[in-house]
């Protein structure tokens, strides 16, 4: 992360639009954190300061930091190129999610929550993703993969570049 982060052109355009959509500029904090994450893959303290400056008074770094640390979808540290999130809640558990988690951790030689040394894969256990009828499931970056078997998991992982 460079100290001199600024929105990419695409994010800047989106920021301009967002400013017209909400009566109170404080509402921009969450969408701005997403813009940064899309640009950088994570949200650093420096980028949070940038957000606070762009939104302007009375929003301070503390407000942005408070929000960023409350919500789990903002990555406060770098994740791998492919962020594999496996649902661990009730329906996925009943349908055997643990086998997938164990399989992937073994395959990559990492523990849950860790990233492979080549920074390619991160495996995280997460709470319900709303795919309970199609369990077990995982989310890789933004995409859902449902009704999984171990063979399919391998096929999906091998197809990732």
């Amino acid at each position, binding site marked *: 992360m460079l100290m001199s982060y600024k929105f990419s052109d695409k994010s800047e355009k989106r920021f301009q639009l967002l400013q017209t*959509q*909400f*009566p*109170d500029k*404080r*509402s*921009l*904090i*969450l*969408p701005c*954190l*997403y813009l940064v994450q899309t640009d950088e893959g994570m949200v650093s303290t420096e980028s949070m300061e940038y957000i606070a400056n762009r939104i302007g008074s009375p*929003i301070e770094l503390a*407000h942005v930091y*408070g*929000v960023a640390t*409350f*919500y*789990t*979808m*903002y990555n406060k540290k770098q994740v791998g190129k492919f962020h594999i999130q496996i649902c*661990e*809640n*009730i*329906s996925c*558990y*009943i*349908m055997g999610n643990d086998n997938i988690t164990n399989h992937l951790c073994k395959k990559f030689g990492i523990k849950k929550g860790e990233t492979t040394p080549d920074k390619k894969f991160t495996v995280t256990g997460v*709470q*319900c*993703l*709303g*795919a*309970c*009828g*199609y*369990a077990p499931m995982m*989310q890789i970056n*933004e*995409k*859902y993969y449902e009704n999984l078997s171990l063979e399919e998991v391998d096929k999906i992982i091998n197809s990732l570049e």
Partner: protein
Amino acid sequence: MPETKVLTKYRGEKDSHTISHYKSKGGYEAAKKALTSMTSDQIVDEVKKSGLRGRGGAGFPTGMKWSFIDKKSTKPKYLVCNADEGEPGTFKDRILLEELPHQMVEGMIIAAKAIDAHHAFIYIRGEYTLSIDRVQQAVDEAYAAGLLGKNILGSGYDLEMALYQGAGAYICGEETALINSLEGRRGHPRLKPPFPAVAGLYGCPTVVNNVETFSAVTHIIQNGSDWYAKMGTPKSTGTRLFSVSGPVKNPGVFEITLGTPLMTLINELCGGMRDGKKLRGIIPGGSSVPILTAKECETANMDFESMADHKTMLGSGAVIVLAEDTDIVETTFRLAEFYAHESCGQCTPCREGTHWVAGLLHKIKDGHGTQKDLDLILSLSVNMEGGTTICPLADACVGAVRPTILKYRSEFESRLIKENKHVA
């Protein structure tokens, strides 16, 4: 028994999410009717008469919620769609968002007119990326067709609509936490009163309704309250989407009239249990509601009253099926862990209680727990419920844990050790 498809009638059809498909099926006629030939009071009355109750979880009468808005207030009024579906077991709104977003947008236009709101927001859970794309497309299409923006369909009514992406906090499904999140804050529920109808988003009168609720409103205005109220039971009118998960042959989302027997849903629509497994129990309304044993399932109907008679709730319409080989101690632990993870931390009984419950269940499931630990869960659960906290998350944790322990006690007790000689 077939499904009664009202909201999901066009589900699965090609391009069902587009405005051209929607309009070809008579879409946006209800909004036109509401904007050009009905007063706001007439809309509220029609929805009241339909008996529609909120489809998010609490089941509060929708028309009554709208009538709490003081139309004389000089402040702006806001309309918010709660698309932050997050209750474990629930995935029915996802279908409506991904495949049929226009009927929700139309319902929001009608509701906005009913409460005199000129700004509407759709708060969608962050993980639902396809839903976000589809709803954004629907809103853009509606703007382009003159169904949003200034002077909609020449009616003189203005309505702006924008999306807001949540960021992975279950608690933001609670309406005051959602409002805080929409204001750019941490998702902390607010103390009520004041209720959102009085002081909600940006301190202004606000109505928050669920995706399915708005979608139903469209059909109520289109076909009339009498038509809607004829479906279901006198106190639980209409149809409802149920999302069924667990080891049944055919899990998924089904739309049925309220009052349908639970086992009809399981045996006929879901094809019964998978691999000839025996039913163990069913959580009928999302992870927060008390479980029903296999015997209780036989007499339970899917309506608000029958569920209350069985001391449980219809909640978010998530039916989680447990089979004979399901480890109930482990599933209960997973749910407790979920609530511990999702507690926002404002109130001590919840922040501490959920972690204690999860920790003790962890100990028991791993075979290190004693009778004292089990008793402790039951005794501390009493202090987590009944208004000791700002919002009902702690109550939800108790609802997911205590009835299960009481109904399947022997299962928990068989894991206990006589006395824990080690210092914990």
